[in-house]
């Protein structure tokens, strides 16, 4: 517990230098960034790494090496009420900076450090007009489409198991 608090404090100190500057930039376009960061976080590692091969990435400096930790997932009492702690999930994060100054943050589900590193580099590139379109078209869009296709397939399979009730009317005269 004590060790954890210390390591969290150390981490804050490490990240503080770029955090302030970063939050200012991020707020300008947080909605778009939210979208691609979520896509990168949720995508299966193999898919991310496969599409990443199509991206020509510039050199970057690692601000915080990829590190695996946990996020406590909170539920709500009764489904909509006060929060409670359901259980944790593994999450891996990484922070990098491009030579041109963009800072990239990757937070991804699971323990794949390469996935987190790629997410961080992609995030930084997406903030730059030079690389934005390339990363969007080669990485984010294919990942998003694959996720949509999976969700769509599951939804149609579920729909096919919906019960259709019918009422049998008994003809008393017969």
């Amino acid at each position, binding site marked *: 517990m004590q060790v954890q608090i210390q390591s969290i404090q150390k981490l804050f100190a490490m990240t503080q230098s770029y955090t302030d500057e970063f939050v200012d930039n991020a707020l300008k376009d947080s909605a778009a960034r939210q979208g691609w960061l979520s896509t990168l976080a949720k995508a299966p590692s193999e898919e991310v790494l496969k599409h990443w091969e199509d991206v020509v990435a510039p050199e970057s400096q690692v601000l915080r090496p990829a590190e695996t930790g946990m*996020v406590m997932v909170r539920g709500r009492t009764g489904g909509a009420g006060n929060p409670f702690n359901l259980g944790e999930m593994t999450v891996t994060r990484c922070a990098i900076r491009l030579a041109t100054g963009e800072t990239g943050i990757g937070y991804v589900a699971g323990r794949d450090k390469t996935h987190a590193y790629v997410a961080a580099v992609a995030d930084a590139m997406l903030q730059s007009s030079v690389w934005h379109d390339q990363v969007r078209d080669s990485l984010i869009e294919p990942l998003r489409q694959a996720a949509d296709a999976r969700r769509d397939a599951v939804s149609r399979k579920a729909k096919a198991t919906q019960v259709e009730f019918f009422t049998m009317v008994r003809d008393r005269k017969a």
Partner: protein
Amino acid sequence: MAYVAVKGGERAITNAHTWLGEVRRGDTSVPELSVAQIREQMSLAVDRVMAEGSCYDPDLAALAIKQSRGDLPEAIFLLRAYRTTLPRFGASTPIETANMAVQRRVSAAFKDIPGGQVLGPTFDYTHRLLDFKLAAEGGHEVPPAQVSEEIMPTQLATIAQVFAHEGLLEGDPVTDASEQPYDLTREPMAFPADRDQRLQALARGDEGFLLSLAYSSQRGWGSTHPLCGEIRMGEVSVGFTPDELGFEIELADLPMTECIMLSGFAGSAEQAPQYTRGYGLTFGHNERKAMSMSIVDRALRGRELGEEGQAPCQDEEFVLYHSDVVEASGFVQHLKLPHYVDFQADLQFLRRLRREFFDAKAKALAEQTAHMKEAAE
């Protein structure tokens, strides 16, 4: 009394563990299981290990199952031990199960629930006959699942939302959004326990224990007369706000099972009668657990709802102190570790007691004999 350290047994332990490795592998003429195979084809075991291990990571859970030779409480222990090695980045935004991408949703109480009864990939209505096709070598063709031309609605109203306007069901208001919920991974169990603490303990709790408690409640030991309002299973988005970003991102869509159990009317002079509710939520597809949890959650609300009950499922200390499979298994199984000193002390004591017993008996007999002799004379 002081503990006496005894050394020895290293070689025996090493050899035992090597043999364990061999037994784990089994007959080497049979192909070895991969972690991916366990993750994909033993997915409900993986779900249970993640729920009670209190850590969502299917690959780790599958690895734990492989390492434990399929002993799920042992796998849960391995996952719990692993999680202690990782730092905590923070807590998620509380999830919204109403927005779940539903794969299965049934209401046993309300046939016409909006969105309909969606069965999903269920064992229900199977005949529970062994399917020998699955035993065929080389696999058999698995017919693909039917796909509908329509998709599911993106949001299915919950049973609570359906009846909210009439007040027939109790609500679950957010009374304090800023409040940090109790965290059993940071604080010890304490009593009286609030509902957030109880729900966390039940979510990590042993499925078998909760199932038996729920069953005991149904059979009359603290009955809550439950009616299954709704069960839903599907993926729920988990949002998290990293400090360095300052805005929320979605980290994952995690499969979860949720159960809302409706229970006896509560009413008073101020409060109109309405259904009360019990709540169950687990990682993965784990209906038996979610249902049991919701019944036990409701039973544990007795104090708050003015019910006087003495049944095991209503006693929060009894339930919460004994629901954790790692603690329970550890405490029962520690008995097999050396207790040589306890036994030695017991033996000495027992020998003295027996000596005193026989001495007393011999003395009594001698006195009796002497007495009889005297009487005869």
